[in-house]
């Protein structure tokens, strides 16, 4: 199983400036865990101290928003997950 996680510009510096990272997992949560395993500095940017998704981070799988209580949704080979960290610049 190979899943790609796309990172927004704001988070790339926490993952060696990578725009996307290949991960392994059967669910969105497992894929995010694998991402954190590869780039531990991303952990504090994506999850809070209790291991919950930050309220200002949004996850999309198969181009559709996935809410924080739906991270157990399964993913299939070739899927792309997008992590969005809120931006507010104007």
């Amino acid at each position, binding site marked *: 199983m190979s899943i790609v996680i796309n990172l927004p*510009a704001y988070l790339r510096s926490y993952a060696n400036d990578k725009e996307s990272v290949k991960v392994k997992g059967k669910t969105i949560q497992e894929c995010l865990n694998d991402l954190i395993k590869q780039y531990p500095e991303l952990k504090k940017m994506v999850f809070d101290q209790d291991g919950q998704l930050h*309220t*200002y981070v949004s996850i999309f799988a198969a181009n559709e928003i996935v809410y924080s209580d739906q991270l157990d949704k399964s993913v299939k080979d070739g899927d792309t997950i*997008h992590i969005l*960290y*809120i931006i*507010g*610049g*104007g």
Partner: protein
Amino acid sequence: MPSKFTMLTLEEKQRYDRQIMIPNFGEAGQEKLKKAKIVIAGSGGLGSPAAIYLAAAGVGTLRIIDNDKVELSNLNRQVLHWDKDIGRSKVESAAEKLTQLNKGVRLETIAKTITDKNVVEMIAGFNVIIDALDNLPTRFLLNKAAIEYNIPFIHGAVYGLEGRVMTIVPGKSACLRCLYQGIPPKKKFPVLGTTPGIIGCIQATEAIKLITGIGKSLTNRLLIYDGLNMKFTELIVKHRKNCEHCGTKAGKQL
């Protein structure tokens, strides 16, 4: 039937000829723009291009809200403000250029910060709100007020060479709070001027489409512009039932 105030003059027909030619736009579309009242919250990187194109398109009334003064570090992106304007009120600087661009547009300038106390008077009676702010708390405040008062709200935001834009039609589409529920600590953000240039123009396009009734709005879709790779991505955002701003949990108090 358009009133004598919204009927186009011969000069206006000539001025807007190229957009009147657009299928389904026509003189009726131009009359709708002439009658329209749009709030532009912020006259910086996003607000400058949005205001320029909305004024050029002949929107009847533009209300520009910004409490900042022009600084040297604004000039790489805030194209309504020039060297000579440093230290001047941004709304005053913006109004000067927009009046010269199109004297037919009625400009209202408000040099105030939007707060929970004044947000209602800032937007009441307007047809569309452009979110061209530079901070997240005020974006959420406006999102909630726009939903309460049933005014379409066009969100845009930038970071570096990345931009995001989404149109929110109250009662019909997901809102900004459906997309994000919280705010991280504030940090200074990097930005290349062309990024808000592109996003601000998309926001102006969305406003014009909503008012004239043409095309398909960017509702329930977040458009992401990645300037580094010159790529656009569209992600589907769904209305959250328990959204604090537009869901069943939404309160009536602002």
